């Protein structure tokens, strides 16, 4: 059995210092500019080793299943369900279909007390006045035995028209996977389906956006946190993802014509701006673990992202998430004049009963194409986790909660 680990990104930077100066060689002697002595030393690389989580070798104690038939009818649970004991739910993505039903995609563990990630889906139906009731969990993507995606990260889905191997599909999933048992060097691949809770077909046997660990480093996160937006509501999708390497965690995107997934037409990478008034504790503002939604009407892209830097105690994840927006055109030019407009930062005071110091991996509930449902009422689903200091099995305390941002 493959042992999976909670995904933790590492913030390590190479800091390149001041660079050396050289003398001018073709200067008129009598008019030479002053020669200023350049520094003779440059700060060396400060490469932090990736922080890995100690393997949990002791399975949590689980109660034996009750063999007696229930004596009373189970109550209806509205809202995002809690994971069962020994399970976690992380890195959600939710699209809402035109009939108001929702598809919740998330990462979970396949067995209680283990850490082997799988991608699961629950479909939810709305009961007006009560909320969503989600179906049972369907495991839709598992790691391959010997491919690039032996270990899985998070996933994102959109609806559209996608042809692969001569079959037209209506759902496209982007998911992160890696060959690394340490959950490093993720790449991002595609899968397609016509039944979200049913069968998903992985597109090819190679990632769509491949992280080359030999170039960028095997010990870094690579490309992770995929977030899909179907730009034209047909087949042109934008894949946002976080690029984590020695220089930090920044978000990029590629545009893909996914109408014919056997011959993908993909753009070059474009880094998402990191300027504006985003909250940051870094020297250079990072944009990690972002989830995106598009509002074609207003021309804005919305984003919910993790705050950086992350906590120094386990779980080493974010302690805040931030909702922000940016004018679409600013994504395409450099320098971009305004950057992100922060809408709101959420921290532990916003969690239920102030209970969670860790909140991270937010996602914006969008329509089926990844477009924003409303600019005045934005629902955000996010992760919380207990602290290791309070619960040694904190990994299994990870579950999903919801914020509703309403413009005042």
């Amino acid at each position, binding site marked *: 059995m493959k042992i999976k680990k909670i995904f933790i990104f590492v913030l390590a930077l190479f800091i390149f210092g001041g660079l050396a100066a*050289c003398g001018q060689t073709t200067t*008129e002697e009598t008019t030479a*500019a002053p020669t200023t002595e350049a520094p003779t030393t440059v700060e060396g690389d400060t490469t932090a080793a990736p922080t890995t989580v100690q393997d949990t070798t002791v399975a949590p104690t689980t109660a034996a299943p009750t063999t007696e038939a229930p004596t009373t009818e189970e109550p209806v649970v509205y809202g995002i369900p809690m994971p069962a004991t020994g399970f976690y739910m992380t890195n959600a993505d939710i699209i809402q279909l035109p009939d108001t039903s929702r598809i919740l995609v998330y990462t979970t563990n396949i067995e209680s007390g283990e850490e082997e990630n799988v991608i699961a889906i629950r479909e939810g139906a709305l009961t007006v006045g009560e909320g969503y009731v989600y179906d049972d969990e369907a495991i839709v993507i598992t790691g391959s035995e010997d491919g690039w995606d032996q270990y899985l990260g998070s996933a994102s889905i959109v609806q559209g028209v996608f042809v692969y191997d001569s079959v037209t599909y209506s759902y496209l999933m982007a998911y992160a996977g890696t060959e690394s048992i340490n959950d490093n060097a993720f790449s991002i691949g595609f899968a397609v389906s016509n039944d979200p809770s049913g069968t998903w077909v992985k597109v090819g046997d190679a990632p769509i956006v491949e992280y080359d660990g030999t170039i960028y480093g095997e010990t870094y996160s690579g490309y992770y946190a995929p977030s899909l937006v179907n730009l034209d509501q047909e087949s*042109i999708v934008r894949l946002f993802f976080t690029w984590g390497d020695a220089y930090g965690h920044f978000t990029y995107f*590629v545009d893909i014509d996914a109408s014919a997934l056997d011959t993908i037409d993909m*753009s070059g990478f474009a880094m998402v701006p990191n300027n504006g008034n985003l909250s940051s504790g870094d020297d250079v503002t990072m944009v990690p673990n972002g989830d995106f939604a598009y509002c074609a009407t207003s021309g804005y892209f919305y984003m919910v992202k993790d705050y950086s830097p992350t906590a120094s105690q386990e779980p080493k994840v974010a302690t805040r998430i931030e909702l922000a927006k940016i004018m679409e055109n600013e994504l395409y030019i450099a320098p971009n004049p305004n950057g992100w407009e922060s809408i709101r930062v959420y921290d532990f005071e916003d969690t239920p009963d102030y209970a969670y110091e860790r909140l991270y991996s937010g996602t914006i509930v969008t329509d089926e194409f990844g477009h924003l449902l409303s600019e005045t009422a934005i629902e955000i689903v996010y992760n919380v986790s207990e602290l290791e200091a309070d619960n040694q099995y904190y990994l299994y305390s990870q579950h999903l909660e919801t914020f509703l941002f309403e413009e005042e």
Partner: protein
Amino acid sequence: MKSRTVRFRFVLTLVMFLSIAVTLAFTSVFALGLSEDYPFKTGDDAFVNGVTWTGPTEQADYWQFFQASFDEATVDLSSATHLAVQIRMDVGSPGLTYGLLENGDRYATAGAPDDTNECFFVAEDGTVSSIGNINFGALWLTEGTQGMLLLPMASLAWQWNNNSSDLTSVSSFYITTNSQYNWAWQVTIGEIGFYTGNPEVDGTYTSLLDLKAQPKTDKYYYDSQTTTSLDLVKPVYPYSNLDTAFNGGVNWTNTLTEASAADTWQTLFVNFKNNVDLTDAKYIGIQYSGNLGSPGITYGIESGNTRYATVSDGKPVYMMDETGLISGLDDVLYGAVNIPQDNTGVLLIPIETLVYQFGDVGNTLATAKNIVLTTNSKYNFNWSVIVGGVGFYNGDIGDEGTVYTPIEIDYYYNAIPADCTMETINVNHYPFDTDLYAFNGGQLWTGPTEVSAADTWETMFVNFNGTYDLTSAEYLVVQYEGNLGAPGITWGIESGDARYATMVDGNSIYFMDEVTGEIEEVTQTLYASVSTPQDKKGALIIPMSAFTYQFGDAGNTLATAKNIVLTTNSKYNFNWALSVGGIGYYDGEIGAEGTTYTSIDVDYFFNAGVNCQMETINYQEWSMAETLVYPYRTGELAFENGKTWVAPATASEADDWQTMTVSFDEATVDFTNASYLAIQFDNTIGNPGLTIGLTSGTGRYSIAGVADGEAIYGVNELGDITTACNVLFSAATTSVHEGMLLIPMSAMDWQWNPDSNTLATVSNLVITTNRKYNYNYQVTIGEIGYYTGEIGEEGTTFTKILDLSIDKSDKFALSGDVTNEATFINPIERRVYGDTFINVTGTGKSSDNFGIWSGGSYGSVAMTTDTYGDTAMQFQATGSNPAGDAYTAIDLSPGGFSWANAEGITFWARNDSDGEVSFNFEVDCKIEASGISDRFNIQQGHRYYLYDVNTGLTYIYMTKPTVNLPVGFEGWIRIPFEAFERAAWSVNGVTKDDFMTEGTIVSYLAITIHSPSYTNMAFSLNKIGSYTIVPQFISPFLEPSESRKTILDLMDLALD
């Protein structure tokens, strides 16, 4: 001992009256005299005209002797009750014997029995105190005592009286002391007199030696003249004694060689700016120097229509020489004063000597309007005198309260110019230029407009070109202008790591006016700083003695001074501006014979003030139009058929003159009427200093034929005219790109012309430069022409004399007098790519053209070709230097071009390795106005474009903090200037806000590679320049359009 304050003028109490008969009973309890004031001058200068007698410094068995004779040969002191001696005990408290001499006999304290006879002292405020009884024949005064020694005659006695003297014929006062017991003392003796009667009651003072008006040096004798000295106490001369002292005055010269036939009154009026009240004047002072002859001049003062003048014979007049020595002149005779030739000083005319001459008697001296000098050339001719300032003393010179008040002069007027000339004196030692360009090359240093919250030291360094030995300097001189405010500047001089600065308060600082050359004390150091008033313009003169050790190795003397340093604290000094130009020093008193001025060659100014700005002063008087109709081709083919002069990459050890000649379409051209030579010109790489001339026969008409400083103009293709440079060392070093050099014919002259050739037969343009100093450059020359007339004026013509519409390679030639390694290339390479202008290419270069920093890691440069077949540069780091920096640093260009107002830097690049390779740009941005530059490089977290010519994909990557070339990348990169930040160690004052803005140029360009990370990972660069339009990212969703232009579109790359 009792004492109390006694004022002679007022009666406070009458304690007792003792007649001379009971003088021995004279006690310390004095009564107060009504009869007279304190008879001597008082105050710090009370002993002016007296003498200071300085005793031996060591013990010696010798009786020292001092004698002061009286004004009269002998005086009857038989009725005197008290001898009064003005005395000041300067050093020590010696026991001195005081006495009177008569016929060699001595009536003195030495004749008195011990501890019996009391003597007294009267302070200048009238305090009378006993100094005790005479002992050992002597009296002791406390050091510092100043006043009147009052010796009761009855307390003295005959020491010896061999001639039966009886005090009726006393000739002198004397002092003796035995230096076996008294040495290392100094005493000053002023006036001497005596009282008849009780000084406090009704005593009458009579002067024996009157020094009120002048000293009387012939009255003194002292012995030993080897172990003691006697020095005259002089007043302070009220004017400068330098040769500039008479500046502003006039030299009044009678040019007649024969006497006038009849009475002819030559007159010089010294007219006051305002009426002056001279009613309290005691002496009128006239600064005077007799150059030739000794004319008898009547001096007068006019008030309204009334004149008071020296028309009364027998009246005294005096002359104070430049040392302060006052001497009596001959009394007024024939209504005139004769001052001997060569006398220089201040004529002192007692106010009583000026008597009413004519006019309304009601006009008093309360409204004096001028001084009038008259002389009759019937008797006085062929003379020359200098008259400078005038003023007046309001009392006895030296007395407390007496000051010399200069009178402000409006103008001098010479009444009969036919016989007398009048020339204004203006001896000027001002060491700097005074014209409009005087401060050019200096810096305007501007302080912050807001006060700093905490101590913030703003500093400007003026670095010398080498070191200077200032140990023999007397004054440091700084060309200075106070543009705004009067900031307190601490001036320092650095030698090695030691700094000497104006740290001690109270030192006088001087200023020499730029116009008049006059020197004045401008301020004194306070809080270790010098506050020079606003609007002062000239030479700030700081005595070297004002520089004291501040910090550093004190072993570093001023023998190796390397700079001067201006510091000020913006917590206290803000909203100010000052200009600093030239620097130099005097090795003696300014204007004194033998004093020389040495100019210090300034290398560069450096502004280390975090809140200050520094701007190079470069005043130009624009004399031509600001624009012209550009006469040559423009755009990408502007230089077609021209030639690019590719210089060798390395310097020569010795002089090696490289020459480019360009002949014209005609064999010779007539430049006789030419006003400007116009050369289509481009500093393709570098900014060499070029000597530009025209050849005519064997002669050369060149910018080397005139003194440095002439302006050479540059014209861009829009026709905008700017000053490209001022000729320096006979060379023009410009930053002209894609334009034209416009050289005034007046800025050239015959450098040599052995056969007297004329400008009518100019055969070619000749450009020379010395490879010893100028190398690794490329200069492109295109068409040539000349203008007649002034640019912009009607009738101006332009004549093209080399038309390059067709190939005329035979017109161009290169040569070197030692080496011949320079080459020509054709300037056909594309420089303009749509919105992009290319500044740096590999064309014409070899690996020798690229310096690799020896202090860094190892690297190599090779030449390759780019996508378009043009010569490109291939770089790679080849290993770490264990003793050096981790980065390989490679020079690309010395700059000299502007990226002002562009959006960013762009270049072609190719990753020739199998991994992603990164490098950074090192860009020096220089503010042309101030001359300061700072290093900028790419910092992390910014977005930049890549356009791959093979895939057609556009990327927006992040700087990390370098330019990253993905594996297999080949194409164009655009890095917004926003991605550049100033290097942390580069703090000269160019800020991010200044970066590549108007008025800046790139003054250095290099790349750096982190050698440990990218060893042997080659990449190629070429066509480095700037772009002006921000491109758009393209994708399957973002198709190119008119409003969404890609790099491909913006650069018109389809042309290639």
